[in-house]
């Protein structure tokens, strides 16, 4: 496969051997509804923060699954907790609580790894 090495763009590469899924599992445990996401994008389309910037609720999910905690933390600072996403979600996912839960658990994670 040496010929195709150029495809493996470094920053998009997830090394599953070192991927820490703790945060994801904690969040899914606290807000189980998050696992039902079908990535339909309704949340992103309605998002108040997304109206001003590139903030994207679905990308939050992606970052969480990829364990990119730093980017996740930065992105989540932008949410206004307005609750529009929660109200429009066709899968009844409690996104406000997802946001709160991720933020809380990142904090715990950072505390424990100090």
């Amino acid at each position: 496969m040496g010929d195709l090495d150029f495809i493996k763009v470094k920053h998009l590469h997830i090394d599953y051997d070192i991927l820490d899924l703790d945060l994801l599992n904690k969040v899914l445990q606290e807000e189980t509804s998050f696992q039902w996401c079908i990535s339909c994008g309704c949340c992103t389309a309605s998002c108040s923060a997304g109206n001003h910037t590139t903030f994207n609720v679905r990308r939050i999910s992606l970052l969480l699954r990829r364990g990119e905690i730093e980017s996740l933390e930065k992105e989540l600072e932008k949410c206004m907790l307005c609750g529009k996403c929660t109200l429009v979600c066709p899968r009844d996912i409690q996104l406000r609580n997802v946001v709160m839960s991720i933020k809380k658990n990142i904090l715990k994670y950072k505390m424990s790894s100090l």
Partner: protein
Amino acid sequence: MKTYFQYPFLIGMIFLFAFLIYLYVRWYTKLSKYDKVRFRKFWGTKKVWKAIYDSINDGLLHASIFKKNPVLGYMHMSLAFGWFLLIVIGHLEVVVATGGLNFPFYYAIFFRYFEPVHATTIAKIFAAVMDFLLLFILVGVALAITKRFYKKIFGMKHTTKLKPLDKVALYSLWAIFPLRLFAESCSAAVYQNGSFLTNTTGAWLGNIANSPVIYQGSWWLYSFALCFFFIALPFSRYMHIPTEIYYIFLRNAGIKTKKTWESYAQIQLYSCSRCGVCLDACQLYDAGISDVQSVYFLQFIRNKEDAEKPLFGCLICGRCQVECPVHLNLNDLRTALRIKASKPLTFSYSYTQKPEQQSADTIYFAGCMTHLTPGTKKSMAKIFDYVGEKVWFMDEDKSICCGRPLMLAGQYDSAAQLIEKNTELIKESGAKNLILSCPYCYKVFKEDYILPDINIKFHANYIKELIDQKKLPDSKLNITAIYHDPCELGRGMNIYQEPRDVIEHYSHRIPLQKSKDKDQALCCGAGLGGINLTGDAKNAMTHNAMTYFDKFNPDVLVTACPLCKKTFVSDRRIEVLDIAELVVKAIEQPNELKALPHREKSYAIS
């Protein structure tokens, strides 16, 4: 003869008083500087009378519980007021009998022991009154015991759970009065010094009471019951008895619950009588949730248990607060704790863009939620058009949230960033009026924004003004409507009448039952306070509320909150309109008899 049985009572009493004085002083010293001044100044004012009145009314007579539930009210009143009278009249009796104030402190408590014979008619009258009071209390105790086992009699669905020290206090309280009856009956059996009650029971006891073991023992037991109760009291729910009085005085002094958990909050925490009235008010039971309700929640905090989940699981709908007979600021207490719990989480909104500025006298701020109910904003636009109001629709694009949802999650500092941004926009526009169509926005703009030169109006009130000024036509629709009071507007901002006036102007309003109307209105279930509720839990509450409305068979359900509307719409049984939409329908279709097709019952979800 020297007696010793009074010592358990005295020990309990001294412990209790010492403990209470310590706590009272500690709480006082921990009040803020300004609250201390408020409390000191309060003593010279007329408000003291109000506080005394409230103490008697709520602390002794339990009038608020009485109004809600007479049997429960009697129970609380007989114990509090009955006991109070027993102590006061008991002391009077001793004063009259001994002809002075020169008697030991415990004398009145055990008077039948020390005064074996009645000499005078007055003494007989006193004995009869004391017997009557004892009976009055015993009935209350009997009710209390029954309540533990058959709560249905009290019309309550739920009673509170107990911890060990509560049990000690509870059982000793239950024991005090039957034991007093027993001891006094023994005395009556020996000396005939009782009255209608104790003489009768004494006669039943007959010779048994002559045994010194039983006779002395009965007084020892009574004294021990008092001792146990007094010692367990500060660590049990009964701590509310002394604390409530303290709270009533502080409240009347004008002290308010703060955003931080401090002394006044702590006093409220201990003032909760665990009467359980808040339980029946809470709709979370519809969703099978039974650890969030105020009484349990306060108990968790008192016991220093982990209460994070219940803390963020309450809708902050305020139904329980309205019902609470102790008048605790339950919403504020939760908010203070949410602020504390979510302090380490931060948000930053440096990214927001400014919307295009327009100069106009009037600003319309729809708010995030209204953007999800486009019918409301379109209707507002039509109303503005109709009356020729030149309006800048401030958050049409690039909307910035009002901040209230963040506050409900405890994020006051983050909300302040949004408040600052919106304030700047409004000030720069030079507008004089600000019209809002969401109760959440209205509350935060009214209470937390500093906009002294702006007239902030809720859309229902604005429409009511337009009607009064004859700027909107009188074109009543021939439909029946139910009005749903949004929590943040009714309980939150005390606006009840204007929306009703508007609805009655344009349709035929069907009034709801008092127990589900105005400040007791149901919550739709989606309140933004409910951070960690599941979708199913919210839907269960929505469903039950709709089932209630459906009984009235209205053509439309009118509300004044975009969140209520969006939530209720999902149930599909009744057509739901925002008040602005109703107005527009009426203006646009004045001649139509049935403006809305009568709904079909067949798709009702069972």
